[in-house]
């Protein structure tokens, strides 16, 4: 049998039962690899359930720094009887199957191409620990101990982590460390030279951090000066607000009074949540909400109001698998069209696409500036994979000299100094953005009637076709201005001669780069553009115009990004080739490689093989 033999480059999958405490053990495992300086990416694949259903945790270890999903499992740690057979069958040929041998393997398990490592986890655990609640948790820690032997993880890194975790309750650290030792000792005794996967310290991650996107987003909102959040619980965005709350409790405390300067309101539904946010934003507070697809549907009416009455709003959409309730605990990038054109009538909303925690932080902060500068809704489009999983990322940085861009807001002095009549919807500068006031700025001036009904330059209700059209066309001018303000795409030209390109965004980025690098190593150069925003900037359009065939790689069924590019820019659809994955799981590099190769093969046969 050919055993898979690799150093710092493998995928391991844990099969557990939801709510059995496996999360902290698996986390301990991933953190240890991170602390040894090796790039690692854990992904939690969990059910829409609180306790009892199957859950998986995939960890990719890759010293080259490829941290998207690769595809395939080199090792499976199976501690869930319900899915044992499926887990067994999914181990890659030459891989390793580690299981709890307290119960014998079913007869169907007859593979000869994998290494089976049985360890009586339950038995060992029950022998050592009395407390039934602890037993369940520690069983998971025992396998982490065993893995430290099998994969050569530095044991002291694990024990350090435990000690750090239980700094305040050292009594709890003891049994955890004991459990690690039980696992280590058993594995040492029974598995000699059984596993050819290993990790070796590399210290590649000198200044990197590991954190989940939702926490980074919450922190971004805090740094951006958000003081009001209105929201309604929904997976997978709930933890954005929880993080905001947590960070606000630590960092948004007024020095003199010790008071926490933030208002977080749990609304009665998503509609009310966005309504509260618009109200606060109208009143001058930086405010935001976080939701997911079903929330976007509900908030659409209010998004239209914010767009048309021009109130700055920041909305975080942590996308999950739709349509309707869909798969609430699976990932997708499928709200693009709904978000970009949310609400009836002619509307267009600005979207931002972060791909890692550092960008969640930065783009969320930038969203507040853009929303106020453009006086319009700005939606930060993350997804479940980015939001809820831990990602290795460059550190979050904030320049203390940075000042918020509040946009065109008139102060009392400016109102006094006006020589002509002020019009809330009057375009003075020709960029489509008008001057607004914040209520209460001036005792007698600057009040206006904010309305979602048709209005003229002075915010008066109008049914005059000319005034209505002028307003709608001005909003398009503003859209063009937005194109000059949104973040530029990241473009990599691998071969200036190549007419083949690829576009992607968000969490698709990591696997896409990996796949394209693989092709480059084989001699096929694909130029890439990672989009950070919608609408597209002029640079982005140049990229599209200078390539003949462009793969648009995204995680939805209908090629939504492609649709946005085509409809918003009049690009010919034929040159954009959809490459989509919509199974609810993060897209893999293997899948993209395969689809790119197939796509390129088709194009060479149809175009006569010119390269």
């Amino acid at each position, binding site marked *: 049998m050919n055993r898979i033999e690799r150093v710092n480059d493998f995928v391991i999958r844990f099969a557990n039962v939801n*709510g059995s405490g496996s999360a902290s053990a698996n986390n301990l495992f991933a953190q240890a690899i991170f602390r040894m300086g090796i790039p690692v990416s854990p992904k939690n694949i969990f*059910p*829409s*359930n*609180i*306790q*009892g*259903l199957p859950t998986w945790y995939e960890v990719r270890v890759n010293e080259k720094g490829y941290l998207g999903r690769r595809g395939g499992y080199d090792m499976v740690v199976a501690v869930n009887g319900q899915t044992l057979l499926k887990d067994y069958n999914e181990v890659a040929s030459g891989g390793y199957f580690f299981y709890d041998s307290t119960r014998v393997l079913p007869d169907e398990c007859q593979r000869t191409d994998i290494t089976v490592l049985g360890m009586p986890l339950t038995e060992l655990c029950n022998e050592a620990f009395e407390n039934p609640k602890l037993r369940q948790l520690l069983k998971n820690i025992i396998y982490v101990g065993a893995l430290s032997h099998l994969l050569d993880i530095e044991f002291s890194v694990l024990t350090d982590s435990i000690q750090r975790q239980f700094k305040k309750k050292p009594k709890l650290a003891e049994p955890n460390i004991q459990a690690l030792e039980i696992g280590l000792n058993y594995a040492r005794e029974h598995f000699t030279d059984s596993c050819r996967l290993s990790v070796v310290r590399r210290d590649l991650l000198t200044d990197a951090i590991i954190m989940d996107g939702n926490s980074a987003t919450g922190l971004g909102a805090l740094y951006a000066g958000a003081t009001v959040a209105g929201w*309604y*619980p*929904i*997976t997978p965005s*709930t933890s954005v607000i*929880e993080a905001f*709350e947590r960070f606000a409790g630590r960092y948004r405390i007024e020095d003199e009074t010790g008071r926490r300067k933030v208002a*977080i309101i*749990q609304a*009665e*539904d*998503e509609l009310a949540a966005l309504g509260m946010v618009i109200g606060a934003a109208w009143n001058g507070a930086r405010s935001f909400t976080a939701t997911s697809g*079903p929330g976007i549907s509900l908030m659409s009416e209010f998004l239209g109001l914010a767009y048309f009455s021009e109130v700055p709003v920041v909305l975080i959409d942590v996308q999950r698998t739709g349509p*309707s*309730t869909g798969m609430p605990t699976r990932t997708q990038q499928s709200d693009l069209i709904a978000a970009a054109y949310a609400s009836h009538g002619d509307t267009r909303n600005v979207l931002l696409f972060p791909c890692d925690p550092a960008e969640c932080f930065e783009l969320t902060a930038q969203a507040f500036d853009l929303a106020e500068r453009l006086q319009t809704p700005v939606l930060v489009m993350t997804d479940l994979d980015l939001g809820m999983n831990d990602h290795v990322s460059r550190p979050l940085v904030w320049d203390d000299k940075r000042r918020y861009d509040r946009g065109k807001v008139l102060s009392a002095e400016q109102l006094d100094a006006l020589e002509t009549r002020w019009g809330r919807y009057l375009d003075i500068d020709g960029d489509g953005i008008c001057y607004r006031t914040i209520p209460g700025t001036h005792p007698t001036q600057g009040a206006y009637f904010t309305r979602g009904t048709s209005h003229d330059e002075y915010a008066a209700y109008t049914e005059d076709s000319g005034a209505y059209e002028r307003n709608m066309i001005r909003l398009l001018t503003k859209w063009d201005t937005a194109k000059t303000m949104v973040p530029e795409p990241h473009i990599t030209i691998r071969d200036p001669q190549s007419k083949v390109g690829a576009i992607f965004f968000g969490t698709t980025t990591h696997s896409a780069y990996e796949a394209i690098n693989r092709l480059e190593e084989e001699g096929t150069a694909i130029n890439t553009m990672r989009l950070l925003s919608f609408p597209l900037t002029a640079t982005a359009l140049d990229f599209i115009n200078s390539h003949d065939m462009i793969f648009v790689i995204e995680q939805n069924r209908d090629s939504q990004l492609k649709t946005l590019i085509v409809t918003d820019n009049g690009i010919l659809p034929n040159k954009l080739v959809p490459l989509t994955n919509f199974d609810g799981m993060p897209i893999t590099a293997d899948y993209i490689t395969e689809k790119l190769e197939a796509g390129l093969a088709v194009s060479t046969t149809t175009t006569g093989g010119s390269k």
Partner: protein
Amino acid sequence: MAVTDYLRQRFFPHMWCPGCGHGTILNSLLRAVEELELSKNDIVMTSGIGCSARISGYVDFHSLHTLHGRALAFATGVKLSKPELTLLVPMGDGDALAIGGNHFIHAARRNIDITAIVMNNRIYGMTGGQFSPLSGPGVKATTAPYTTIDANFDVVKLAIAAGASFVARSTAYHARESTEILKKAIMHKGFSVVEILSQCPTHYGRKNKEGDAVAMLELHKTNTAKLGSKQLEENPNLVARGIFIQEERAEYCIEYGKIVEHAQRRNVK
């Protein structure tokens, strides 16, 4: 038919945590349906989103798992299109009275012949323990780390004021009593609301130090008393259980039928 005949066993094991009150309520409901000898084919269950709403997956009726808070809207459509069907709508507290509050009062106002079962555990279980409009002040939740300040709805009073013609309350501990009440609610012609206090040991219990499921069930027993009982009279702080209102009143589908007849008579002339 046996109770188990009303269950979709292929969807088991169910998704509720050990000790969750929702399974007990499912049991009470199935027994009510069985004792009434209703045909499965005549029952439609619609539900929204949340731990409670999953109940519709485990019953072998015609069932619709719809949108968060909106199950009553679907139920209204189903009922109007075929009034002879029995409509059961299990709802969680957030589902029924936060996002679904509007639908709830309007279904009550119409007095349409639907049985709404509010499985009240005073918390959002599915999303990890946020407070609900039924939590009431002084409750700990992830969104109320220093306890809630929001007043709660009294489901019984709200339903009565909005026009429901059958309103009752019981608890997961009082499973037999719940069955009896549910039987009456289902047979009642009009909008019936049955609030059943449930327990969420995973979130509510843990955060509010109410102990495990057994301890929480014990609270259902000690904190409540039957309507008209001496116990309640002596201690009005207890939560009352029983049937608060049961009135014959114009039912929406019947009235609708009458208006159709009326309009047709005029047309004939």
